[in-house]
């Protein structure tokens, strides 16, 4: 079935204003009678909840954290893009739109990407008005820097804590609405199902993680802003509790999943130092401006870095991509590193990393200059590894970082379930097959501050006459029963292995076979392996304690149960796409010198997967991508 993304008619630069001008409104008296549930209180969730509450809707907002300020948006360091053209360097909406579309390897929707660029300038205004202390120049005006993949300076930043500061802005706006009693905040509540009545989203089932109580909540619309699920790879730059459960439960209720296998793997994370490590730390990509990446020319070389002579080092990025060298785009740099590591050239005690070497930069520029640029990063590196990077090269390795895939949404950010919206990293939109650095904070904010506050009311205008949702409806009872049953099933297994044991194995399978590079053979194997793993999960899982108390092992098990299903869909998705594009690299589809081969004639579509019932293969729906305003070109970084 072909999907209708509901893109407004007209010229690219008029679509959003046209939509806004014609969207339906709800009068203030009626807004008070309408309830909205927001799941997630990261940048996307907090901003949407606060903005809709300001309009007068009654909001119930849920998150699994103990306060919204801890959502993983907090960890974004680098910055947020906006085309303010403060540098007078030729930036404008069209250019930003083009950079984003091209960065995504022409696998995103033109109209959405254009809107993202169009709303970007206003986001900076909004954040500054909230008190976000962005970096400034001595004259008092806002400072910018340039970030990967573009030729202009459009990145705004607040030291290395841009995500934290933006999130605090949104969190404070949300707290203001809590105080005004427009928002009811439920922290430490995890959503476990969406409830549909007459085909529309009308509520959720949540678990109070402090007491284990299962609760029903009804509303006239439900917004999911639950973030990315890159933690499915187990080792990733995401926080420990990031998960895919909310969107997966929605999928099983009829929302389609868009391009679930597209994951950005970041090249400059710190390698795993031991089997018990569960989280990888991201090092800023800016290090690649002065660091040179290399591995020994000999496989399994056990010498220390400094004792390997210059002639025996392989600066493989400089060798393969002379034009971009160490600054090759994320996907290319990550793939090249994994290729070397897998071929036996990896460095470090477990040969799982490559070197990022500053000796040349230090010799040329001096320690003082390097310290001025990267001092805090060198300190952080030493804190974590105990190694002084002025004396020996850093060790880095690729790690899962960002989900381009997620719930399929139309131009209004509504999923295929009427009344169910998906915002931020939880949806698939805007980034195509590869997202550009500093564009995702932007997307989470634009979705929450500017898009949902217009499109959700447009939907609610049709719900004014709908009665208050009755949580005693049969649909709630069934959904609650299913959730309880699932919890009881997991607790009753009483096997021998904790949830992490399965999660680690799943992560390994996906990282090797559905990560940086994929092949039909590998993906088929992965699907079989995941099925076996899932079977053993239901035989051998162990969870101490009960469901009626704080129980982190139960929380983990519930998430891993979903991951074991999402992983399979990711492989199915990757297997279907017989082309290479952006982060999706299929080994069979490359040029003789190893470059990605995109196939616009057959694959210029979004894969939107539909659940067809337990044990049945998912159904593929296609949203064909039409390029009306730009001509797709080949990405070339040689």
């Amino acid at each position, binding site marked *: 079935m072909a999907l209708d993304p509901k893109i407004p008619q007209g010229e690219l630069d008029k679509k959003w204003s046209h939509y806004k001008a014609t969207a339906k409104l709800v009068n203030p008296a009626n807004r008070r009678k309408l309830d909205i549930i927001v799941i997630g209180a990261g940048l996307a969730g907090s901003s949407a909840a606060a903005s809709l509450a300001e309009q007068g809707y009654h909001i119930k907002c849920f998150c699994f954290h103990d306060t919204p300020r801890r959502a993983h948006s907090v960890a974004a360091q680098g910055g947020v893009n906006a085309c303010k053209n403060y540098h007078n360097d030729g930036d404008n909406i069209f250019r930003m739109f083009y950079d984003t579309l091209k960065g995504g390897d022409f696998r995103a929707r033109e109209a959405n990407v254009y809107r993202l660029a169009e709303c970007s300038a206003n986001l900076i205004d909004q954040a500054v008005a909230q008190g976000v*202390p962005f970096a400034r120049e001595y004259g008092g005006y806002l400072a910018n820097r340039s970030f990967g993949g573009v030729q202009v300076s459009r990145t705004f930043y607040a030291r290395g804590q841009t995500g*934290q500061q933006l999130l605090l802005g949104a969190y404070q706006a949300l707290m203001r609405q809590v105080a005004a009693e427009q928002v009811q905040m439920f922290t430490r509540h995890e959503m476990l199902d969406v409830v549909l009545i007459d085909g529309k989203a009308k509520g959720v089932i949540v678990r109070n993680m*402090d007491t284990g109580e299962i609760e029903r909540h009804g509303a006239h619309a439900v917004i999911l802003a639950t973030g990315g699920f890159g933690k499915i790879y187990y080792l990733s730059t995401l*926080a420990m509790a990031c998960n895919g459960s909310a969107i997966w439960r929605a999928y099983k209720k009829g929302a389609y999943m868009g391009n679930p296998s597209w994951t950005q793997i970041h090249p400059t994370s710190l390698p795993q130092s031991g089997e018990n490590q569960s989280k990888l730390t991201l090092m800023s990509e800016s290090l690649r401006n002065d660091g040179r990446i290399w591995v020994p020319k000999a496989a399994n070389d056990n010498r220390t870095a400094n004792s390997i002579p210059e002639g025996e080092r392989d600066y493989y990025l400089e060798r393969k991509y002379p034009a971009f060298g160490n600054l090759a785009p994320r996907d290319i740099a990550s793939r090249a590193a994994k290729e070397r590591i897998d071929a036996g050239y990896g460095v470090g005690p477990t040969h799982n990393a490559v070197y990022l070497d500053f000796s040349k930069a230090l010799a040329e520029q001096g320690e003082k200059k390097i310290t001025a640029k990267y001092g805090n990063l060198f300190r952080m590196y030493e804190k974590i590894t*105990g190694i002084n990077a002025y004396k020996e090269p850093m060790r880095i390795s690729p790690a899962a970082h960002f989900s381009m895939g997620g719930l399929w949404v139309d131009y209004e950010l509504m999923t295929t379930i009427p009344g169910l919206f998906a915002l931020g990293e939880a949806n698939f939109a805007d980034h195509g097959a590869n997202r550009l650095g500093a564009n995702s904070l932007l997307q989470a904010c634009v979705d929450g501050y500017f898009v949902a506050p217009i499109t959700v009311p447009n939907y609610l205008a049709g719900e004014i006459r709908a009665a208050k949702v009755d949580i005693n409806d049969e649909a709630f009872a069934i959904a609650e029963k299913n959730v309880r049953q699932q919890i009881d099933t997991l607790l009753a297994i009483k096997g021998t292995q904790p949830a992490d044991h399965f999660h680690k194995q799943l992560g390994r399978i996906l990282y090797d076979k559905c990560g940086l590079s994929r092949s039909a053979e590998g993906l088929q194997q992965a699907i079989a392996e995941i099925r076996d793993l899932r079977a053993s999960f239901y035989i051998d899982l162990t*969870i101490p304690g009960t469901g009626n108390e704080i129980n982190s092992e139960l929380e983990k098990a519930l998430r891993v149960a979903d991951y074991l299903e999402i992983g399979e869909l990711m492989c199915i998705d990757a297997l279907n796409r017989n082309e290479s594009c952006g982060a999706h690299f299929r080994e069979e589809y490359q040029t003789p010198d190893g470059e990605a081969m995109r196939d616009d004639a057959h694959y210029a579509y979004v894969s939107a997967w539909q659940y067809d019932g337990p044990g049945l293969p998912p159904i593929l729906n296609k949203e064909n991508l039409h390029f009306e305003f730009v001509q797709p070109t080949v990405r070339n970084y040689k």
Partner: protein
Amino acid sequence: MQVFLKIWRQAGPSDAGKLVDYSLDNISEEMSFLDMLDTLNDMLTRKGEMPVEFDHDCREGICGQCGVMINGRAHGPLKNTTTCQLHMRSFKNGDTIYIEPFRASSFPIKRDLKVDRSAFDKIIQSGGFITERTGQAPEANDIPIPFETAEEAFDAAACIGCGACVAVCKNSSAALFTAAKITHLALLPQGKYESQKRVLNMVNTMDEQGFGHCSNTEACEAECPQQISVLHIARMNYEFNKALVLKK
């Protein structure tokens, strides 16, 4: 290396708690402190015992979720370091490590090392924001902010809300947390119009939530992972007194 742990176990808010002994072998120096606790929990889970509940999420020192007292110090022996950023190389083979929750009457213990810090949200709700609705903002560069002011505001805004300041304070005062937000917003032109109302409300709420008064021991600054300065407390007091005078 081998470490001996004495960990606070408490089933629920109203249960009695006690220190329980555990020992772990094969702990490597590269391990983070929380990896070490994960290892313990893995062992307990496999034995069918309840694992130790502790708070954590980002594991990179920014979300503020982690935080325990380690040998009597908030976030452990290193300065300006959260619990999740601490590594086992800070300990020696054979060390005994006491691990306890952040204790304060306003931070009730939920279970084991997990505490309830929602009182911080209450403080922010009472005024830790700038009243601005989406759509009202003028062009960002219309109001220049001096470089130094923006930097100072950032220093205060960097607080991660972990609660170490409260846990180390003998009065369980939330002065540093509250003052950091008051300074951050009062310094900015956008935030100064409601600074009077803000400081009065936030200080009141701090008292209502049962936090103690500041007696200038400066223990909070010493243990703060973000190096938030106690000078902000002085500014809060100044703003508070100014607001009181102007109110009359």
